[in-house]
């Protein structure tokens, strides 16, 4: 297939995944900030929302204060923030138009309908909490529909695999970013004073990767920080864990390798990261420092993006 087509499919999936992730982040932050300060402490949750979205620096070039109104506006509706939900949807639609021939009609319909639906919102934003909640739900549902359409209607060929590569790379990046910003509340007990305050922080992390219910099914325990870290990093049954993302990335890259009759640096690099995750346990990770581990992962993950681009997309 055309390199440009593969590139568009890859980015299309990334944009849709990112839009969903942003919607979840805002959603989770709204929940935490709705609680009385005695439960959640005085940290500015809107600041951490900006950090997990990776746009804190550019935000402060446009706004003075990180409050609900400003952050929701910047993450959702801003035309100047290149990774606002708005720009993710716009970019997804533009990419879809460029590769319409590689999309199934269901995928196109999902993106195009969402784009049409959201046009009216961009200029005026949302005026009430209900409207905002409706909007955030709509974005998440669009991502689910898109993902489901791809899964159910695409041929299992390189077009599908490149689209999945984008999805899993973006997802791994998002999960790692939450961990990066929140790692301090996940430190083991002896280094950290637990309290009601942390409980809401922890559930907020899980909520933003839609893993709150999953946690209880997997561990049948109350929320414990190291188990949360274990779930998000190493548990490959959780679709948004780093381990699961890398299981999928290795599989997708292998499928491409088989179809094209050759492997390359992308396959090797992905396998390297997967193996490291497979052979890690939380004890070691905590011992060597969660923060260092996560930062290294983020760098490795973005390096994979560069290698894939060089090997296939240009």
């Amino acid at each position, binding site marked *: 297939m055309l390199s440009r087509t593969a590139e568009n499919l890859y980015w299309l999936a990334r944009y849709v995944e990112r839009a969903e992730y942003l919607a979840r982040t805002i959603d989770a932050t709204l929940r935490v900030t709705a609680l009385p300060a005695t439960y959640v402490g005085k940290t500015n949750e809107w600041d951490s929302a900006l950090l997990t979205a990776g746009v804190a620096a550019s935000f402060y070039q446009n706004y003075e204060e990180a409050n609900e109104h400003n952050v929701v506006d910047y993450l959702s509706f801003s035309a100047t923030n290149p990774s606002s939900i708005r720009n993710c949807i716009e970019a997804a639609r533009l990419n879809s138009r460029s590769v*319409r021939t590689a999309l199934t009609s269901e995928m196109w319909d999902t993106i195009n309908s969402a784009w049409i639906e959201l046009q009216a919102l961009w200029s005026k934003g949302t005026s009430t909490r209900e409207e905002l909640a409706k909007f955030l739900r709509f974005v998440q549902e669009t991502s689910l529909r898109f993902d489901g359409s791809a899964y159910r209607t695409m041929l299992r060929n390189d077009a599908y695999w490149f689209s999945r590569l984008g999805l899993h790379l973006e997802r791994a990046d998002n999960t790692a970013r939450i961990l990066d910003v929140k790692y301090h509340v996940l430190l083991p007990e002896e280094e950290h004073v637990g309290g009601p305050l942390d409980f809401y922080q922890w559930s907020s992390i899980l909520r933003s990767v839609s893993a709150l219910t999953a946690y209880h099914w997997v561990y049948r325990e109350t929320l414990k920080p190291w188990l949360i870290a274990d779930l998000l990093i190493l548990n490959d049954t959780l679709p948004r864990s780093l381990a699961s993302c890398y299981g999928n990335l290795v599989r997708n890259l292998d499928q491409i390798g088989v179809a094209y009759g050759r492997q390359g640096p992308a396959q090797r690099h992905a396998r390297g990261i997967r193996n490291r995750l497979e052979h890690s346990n939380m004890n070691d990770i905590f011992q060597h420092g969660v923060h260092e581990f996560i930062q290294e992962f983020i760098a490795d993950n973005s390096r994979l993006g560069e290698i894939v681009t060089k090997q296939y997309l240009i």
Partner: protein
Amino acid sequence: MAVAFDEMNIPGGDLRPAYQELARWLEETPPEALEYRRQEAELLFRRIGITFAVYGDSESTERLIPFDVIPRIMSGKEWALLEKGLKQRVRALNMFLRDIYHGRDILRAEVVPDDLIFHNPVFRPEMNGQQVPHDVYVHIAGIDIVRVDANDFIVLEDNARTPSGVSYMLENREIMMRLFPDLFARHRVAPVERYPDELLAALRSVAPLSASAEPTVALLTPGVYNSAYYEHSFLADKLGIELVEGRDLIVKNNEVFMRTTEGLKRVDVIYRRVDDDFLDPLTFRPDSVLGVPGLMSAYAAGNITLANAVGTGIADDKAIYSYMPDIVKFYLGEEPILKNVPTWRCREPKDLAYVLDNLSELVVKEVHGSGGYGMLIGPAATKATIEAFREKLKREPEGFIAQPTLALSTCPTCTASGLAPRHVDLRPFVLTGSKRTTIVPGGLTRVALKEGSLVVNSSQGGGTKDTWILDE
């Protein structure tokens, strides 16, 4: 202006046979139902994304072409005549192009004046002596046809460069079949859906000799911001070929390749929807980012077929148009089946004098214009507009031609105040491959939605209709 030919009603109250069933159906169908279907059609167009961009229109970059749900109907007999005429016309166009870029018999015979060719910006000296496979230059032609009476088809314009609109022919039919299954059950409408297959067959048949047995065809688009982008992606999809942009292609050793995830892959035939000027920055406009550097040398080496060929503009130029009846006679020794609109060539002093005296009754067009821009419709223009145009005309008479204001035929059309006649034209698409010329029965009917308006261009408030050829 004469009374327009009504395609449905015979003066005196009778219906033309092709429209009888439709008229009956219209009587049975309440107007609200029609309006409801119209809205449904609009929604479908928007969801599928069948939009076009109007250049210089800032408020909305993607617009819908209004779709009228009342079909335009022609009998099989009428179509048979039109089809014969179209094939004749396109054969002549191809022979003319072959001649212009090789022996130039027609110039020596003084049928067409030299300077109209050599001083014409769309003449491409790069094509002199260049062999094109099977001598086909115009693989895809869109010939604009109008009717003024029951007996004649008149060519308004030949489109031999990169004619567009065929996606509307196909999508209009799809949408009509979805919305009005009952109406289809009452007619025998010739299908149009084999067009993509015919097009692919035609393109593959003209692959260069150096191509493999299974030639690779690609569609070259200027990209998502082009006004006809939807059509490009639609056709690439239907043909099952790659939709490429200039940056996806690269020329090496005079061969053209596309960049794929598995490395470079050779391309043999390019169905290009990029104008000559932008095809190759090394040969034509150096500032073009839409083209492929070196494409013309691969073309000269005979390693790539471009469809349509480079330089076909010289055949559909409005200045050449007036010579088409003579061109048909010169190459084929036959009387032209399709008529021309009588045309005054303002470059000729006698014609110019006549035109200047009768501006308020004539349509004056720029020789190199298209899309309905830059033209004067005398009967509809104000005095001031006419006077301003007169000055333009005097300054550069060779840039214009003039024609009588034609009373384009009318078809019943949905309007705010119910069904009413509106003026229409027709663009059938003629495909020429190595061995045969085919025309899918139908075409794009454009309709001027404003009462009395004769401008059918989508950029100027025109709409489209499904075109039915009855299988008798």
